[in-house]
């Protein structure tokens, strides 16, 4: 039986599961692909919002997309110099 099974191409898993898994990962990455221009715009707008609440060190901001196998995250590292305590109440 083992011989026959080998002879007739048995034992191979169907390849569609592999296709499905690969497709999902490809799409996760495709859908989160961001142009440098868009990332710059995002950075500028984020800085504007944050600046209402705190002084930030704009020279040391790092914003990027962090890709791993199954997910993509927006990772922002923004050093804070000082929180504007009085201002928050005024704004809101």
């Amino acid at each position, binding site marked *: 039986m083992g011989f026959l099974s080998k002879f007739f191409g048995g034992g191979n898993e169907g390849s*569609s599961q592999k296709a499905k898994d*690969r*497709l999902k990962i490809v799409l996760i990455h495709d859908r989160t692909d961001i142009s440098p221009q868009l990332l710059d715009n995002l950075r500028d707008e984020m800085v504007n919002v944050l600046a209402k609440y705190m002084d930030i060190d704009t020279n040391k901001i790092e914003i990027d997309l962090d890709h791993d196998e199954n997910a993509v995250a927006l990772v922002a590292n923004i050093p804070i110099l000082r929180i504007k305590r009085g201002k928050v109440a005024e704004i809101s």
Partner: protein
Amino acid sequence: MSARVIVTTSGKGGVGKTTSTANIAAALAKFGKKVVAVDADVGLRNLDVIMGLENRVVYNFIDVIEKTCKLSAALVKDKRVPGLYLLPAAQTRTKDAVNPEQMVALCEELKPEFDFVLLDCPAGIEGGFKNAAAGADEALVVTTPEIPAVRDADRIIGMLESMGKSPIRLIINRLRPNMVQDGDMLAKDDILDVLSIDLIGVVPEDESVIRATNNGEPMTMTLDSPAAHAYLNIAERILGRDVPLMDLESYATRGFISKIKRFFSGKRKR
């Protein structure tokens, strides 16, 4: 009369856009609608040969846009089915010969004359796609059950959504029920899972497609093959009729050797 303008597109080439456009156009005409299939693939025209009308092409839609001829002179009437027309592409021009505004104007000119304007879009995401999509209200996205085609379809769906096309519906073409049963091909639901878009039909792999192309006669004109039925069903769904999906399992016929193979490989339970 104000036509519904539908673009057939895919991103990836060779998945069956033109075949789909020709068959759906012929099917809609068989249902008594007045239909024009527009070949928007400037420079690489093929809708004329798929429809078997290549010998009757005189003018093309660039001539209409540039006012070298009247619209009525460029339209090729299909004598086999009443109400079916082709508006050919120019073969000796490039895609830069048209811009989206001109395509929109052309569609506006066609709308009062027809029930349906089907635009056969070129492959790719550049100018040719943008021109064809500009004139359309609705979209049909064609894909095959393979990673590259589904990936490109995803990209195209995103672009069509941002252009405000609605509804955008999916045709899964060239599905092989045997291979799906054996777990060797992406199934309909696998594709719908990742694309999250409405399905309008599944067309099985079918040798009749090649014969129909050889003969220059869209399959839906004669209706003697599984693919023809699938396209006819798609046309009915476009008309808003509730038609159940074909039972593709019944087309998964197999020979004796493949039955034995399946027995020994343990794939029969899938």
